[in-house]
């Protein structure tokens, strides 16, 4: 008998906090870090007699997020009441577009196991309100067994986009790529900053298994994943668990399971899923979106990261890897493009951003928007190195000095005692390249490791110094040749 194989069938639901200063149905601030229960009003507290009123700014953010997922916009959508009782849900129902959402279907591309591009279809994106947050006195921090629970309603009514995928995801790695690409595109659209550490993106996964003998396992809903890592681990765990059950001929029970990140396991949810029913929210009229409004918002859509990366490669001949790294962060890409706009050579500027800028940011735990060296300053520095006014090594020293001392190029050059005008930078590199090209046998000897005493390197150095008519610094020449023959 042939060995049984299993294909995971996975659908993912994502909740993303949309960027807005005020809540979905009232004008309260969305600052959830404020002291508990200070950003609340009769509407988000669900007090008797209060009525919701739709925040049109959030509708626009929903449209942008929808465009980022390649979705269309419905000319008419509705809000519904999704009923269940829980202390963090003031009205006893959540107001959500679940049944007639603002967007139609879309897709996000990922790479499958063979490295081929595949589309994960997005069923829809809809708008809904978030619930409050509970704080329990019990040691495990959960509601059951707690002596006392406290509710903070600051988060209540903050705007969410729920994004529901079709069950097109076939592995944990596809799932992670899906959510990463999706997150990046939504950030680009401006609909949300999706700061993961602030809980602005939460995941649920529906996992089931198809067996090569024709059996289908029941669907299991796994909840409570708040990071890419948690999503990946939870799906991997669930795939293994279900596979084992099916190999043993057991049934996979259809249920909701809770991901325990500390233990690295899923376990049956202790809170029974409530029986949910939807009626149309009678306090809100249907949401009508005109073609004019759609066109206006679509015009605001910036270039998406994959399109941008492709353009870097095709228009500017930037290496694919560098283009991908830079476009991963919308603000970094904007910084890089500002450098180019300020006159820097795109390829050289891309390497500076890819290596030097990112290094300094990482070392100092900074975000690009907080980076002090202005793009036009970096562009000027890149140009000076490019024109050979200063060497690459000197350029890096100047860069570090400017960063550390928040000063301009001229000041850094002066303070570092660099004399401009010698043969350095790319002009020097060009000479070195020519010298090496003219002496292939010498290069071969160095590469094969025969030049143990460095005599051959010294020989090349001499040739280069001669070519520069003594205008280069010997130390720099030595470093540059050592780099070039690697």
């Amino acid at each position, binding site marked *: 008998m042939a060995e049984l194989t299993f294909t995971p069938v996975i659908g993912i639901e994502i909740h993303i906090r949309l960027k807005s200063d005020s809540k979905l149905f009232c004008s309260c601030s969305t600052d959830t870090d404020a002291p508990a229960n200070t950003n609340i009003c*009769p509407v988000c*507290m*669900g*007090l*008797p*007699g*209060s*009525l*919701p*009123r*739709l925040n049109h700014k959030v509708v626009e953010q929903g449209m942008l997020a929808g465009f980022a997922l390649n979705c269309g916009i419905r000319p008419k959508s509705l809000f519904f*009441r999704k*009923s269940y*009782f829980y*202390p963090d849900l*003031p*009205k*006893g*129902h959540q107001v959500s577009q679940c049944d007639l959402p603002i967007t139609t279907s879309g897709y996000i591309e990922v790479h499958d196991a063979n490295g081929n591009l595949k589309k994960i279809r997005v069923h829809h994106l809809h708008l809904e309100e978030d619930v409050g947050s509970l704080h329990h006195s019990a040691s495990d921090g959960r*509601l*059951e067994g707690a002596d006392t*629970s406290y*509710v903070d309603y600051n988060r209540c009514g903050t705007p969410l986009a729920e994004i529901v995928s079709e069950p097109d995801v076939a592995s944990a790695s596809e799932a992670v790529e899906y959510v990463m690409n999706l997150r990046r595109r939504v950030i680009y659209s401006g609909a949300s900053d999706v700061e993961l550490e602030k809980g602005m993106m939460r995941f649920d996964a529906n996992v089931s298994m198809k067996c090569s003998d024709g059996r289908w396992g029941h669907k299991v809903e796994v909840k409570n994943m708040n990071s890419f890592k948690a999503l990946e681990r939870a799906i991997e765990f669930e795939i293994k668990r279900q596979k084992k059950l099916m190999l043993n001929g057991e049934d996979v029970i259809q249920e909701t399971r809770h991901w325990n990140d500390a233990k690295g396991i899923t376990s049956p949810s202790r809170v029974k899923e409530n*029986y*949910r*029913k*939807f*009626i*149309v929210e*009678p*306090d*809100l*009229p249907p949401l009508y979106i005109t073609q004019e409004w759609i066109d206006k918002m679509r015009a605001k859509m910036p270039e998406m990261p994959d399109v941008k990366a492709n353009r870097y490669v095709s228009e500017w001949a930037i290496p694919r890897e560098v283009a991908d790294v830079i476009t991963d962060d919308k603000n970094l890409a904007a910084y890089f493009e500002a450098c180019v706009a300020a006159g820097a050579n795109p390829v050289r500027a891309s390497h500076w951003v890819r290596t030097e800028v990112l290094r300094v940011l990482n070392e100092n735990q900074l975000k690009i928007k907080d980076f002090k060296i202005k793009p036009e300053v970096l562009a000027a520095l890149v140009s000076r190195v490019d024109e050979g006014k200063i060497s690459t090594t000197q350029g890096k020293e100047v860069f570090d000095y400017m960063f550390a001392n928040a000063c301009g190029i001229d000041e850094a050059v002066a303070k570092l005692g660099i004399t401009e005008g010698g043969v350095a930078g790319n002009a020097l590199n060009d000479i070195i390249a020519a010298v090496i090209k003219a002496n292939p046998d010498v290069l071969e000897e160095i590469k094969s490791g025969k030049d143990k005493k460095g005599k051959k390197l010294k020989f090349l150095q001499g040739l280069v110094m001669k070519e520069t008519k003594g205008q280069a610094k010997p130390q720099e020449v030595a470093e540059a040749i050592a780099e070039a023959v690697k």
Partner: protein
Amino acid sequence: MELYELNLHDAIEGLKAKKFSPEELFESCKKRIDSCEDKIHAFITRTEDFAKSQLASNPTGIFAGVPTVLKDNLCTKGIRTTAASKILGDWRPPYDATAWKYLREAGAILMGKVNMDEFAMGNTCGNSAFGPTANPNDISRVPGGSSGGSAAAVSAGYVPFSLGSDTGGSIRQPASYCGVYGLKPTYGMVSRYGLISYGSSLDQIGPFARTIQDLQLVMSVIGNYDPMDSSCFREKAHDFTHNENPSIKGKKIALVKEFQDFTLDAPIADAMNKIKKILEDEGAIITEVSLPVVARYAVACYYALAMSEAHTNLERYDGVRFGYTVKDAAGIKEMFERVRSDGFGAEVKSRIIAGTCLTEPTRCEEYYVAATKVRTLIAQEFSRAFGETDFILQPATPSMQPKIGEVDDDEMKGYEADLYTLPVNLAGLPGLSFFTGYADKLPVGLQLIGPRWSDAELLNAGVIIERHTGSPKIANGGAE
């Protein structure tokens, strides 16, 4: 003549001319309330201290110094608001309902919060956690409901006008029973912000008064746009200015064909004939319209929608943030169960259960969704009818005021009674309940219905009728 007997218009004029002071008017009304309230029991909460503080701040505006009362499902900042339910406990809203805010800003003085059926569910004002209210015309009889307290307070001369709410007849039926005028405005005419919801897509706030002109005055204040209510909008500006001599000449006034076989109590049938005659004498053309879908399905459709909306509107009463709660529950589930079991009255609980059943996934299509579709048909049917006629004339209720505690077990009669009021809410139409005269000392009312946004025209028609019938007198309030 005592000051409390003044209607709203005359009170305003008297105050303006300084014939008497707001304090004197307040004292007269207070004295009237003190002398009758034992028998009428219209109030849930009297707010005379608040009224005095308002007077002390010298209110300005067109209602400056005129006392009023509010149905107790309208939120009043810092003043207990109960919806006649135990579940709201001693809740004091942190905000004013918009309709009350507009009145307060116009200078109206709040004498108190008045009785109603719990969460506006009922038609006798007897289904209240605070006990029943009596009809000031005959204290052995009900004032009608659910806005019974608002109708009784105006009828008894406590105040010249009041506000109530109407989800399926809750302004028009008590107005008719108590012998006052009551308007259920077009849905969206008056902001619902701060009205404790029963059936959100049906609820509408409206005024009670002893003259049509007074209704016009109140509408000119409360019938204004409010951004806090998304269903409140304006297709055009509405002018409620009183016209002494409106005309109805050449206008068509229809009776509903399907209702003609229903039995009416004799005084109501007589009133129908009397009003038809008056309108004809004024040059109106009496005609007939057919409303087959309304006649066949409106009642079922109404209850399916009202209960579906009500059960979700009442989900927020969980004892966590406000109102009645229990402190010794073993867990959150027990807390929810006990709060809701102890807090809600029987009628409310039965409607919550019905609403829950009507919307559960296996039945939702068959009941709730079907009802939303029928509702569209009903609205279309009215629209068509109003292409053939200007107004529809019918009773507000087919029966005279029942005795308190008297149960009418004639189911068909109950069904027909509902048919006179509920369809108006389903189609979002305005309905005017007007006084026609007395039969054996009991007031008899009827109803005039118009197309959406015809509220001002309806009131003008009311002025013509009032000119013939005279305005109602203040009821004796239980005096022997």
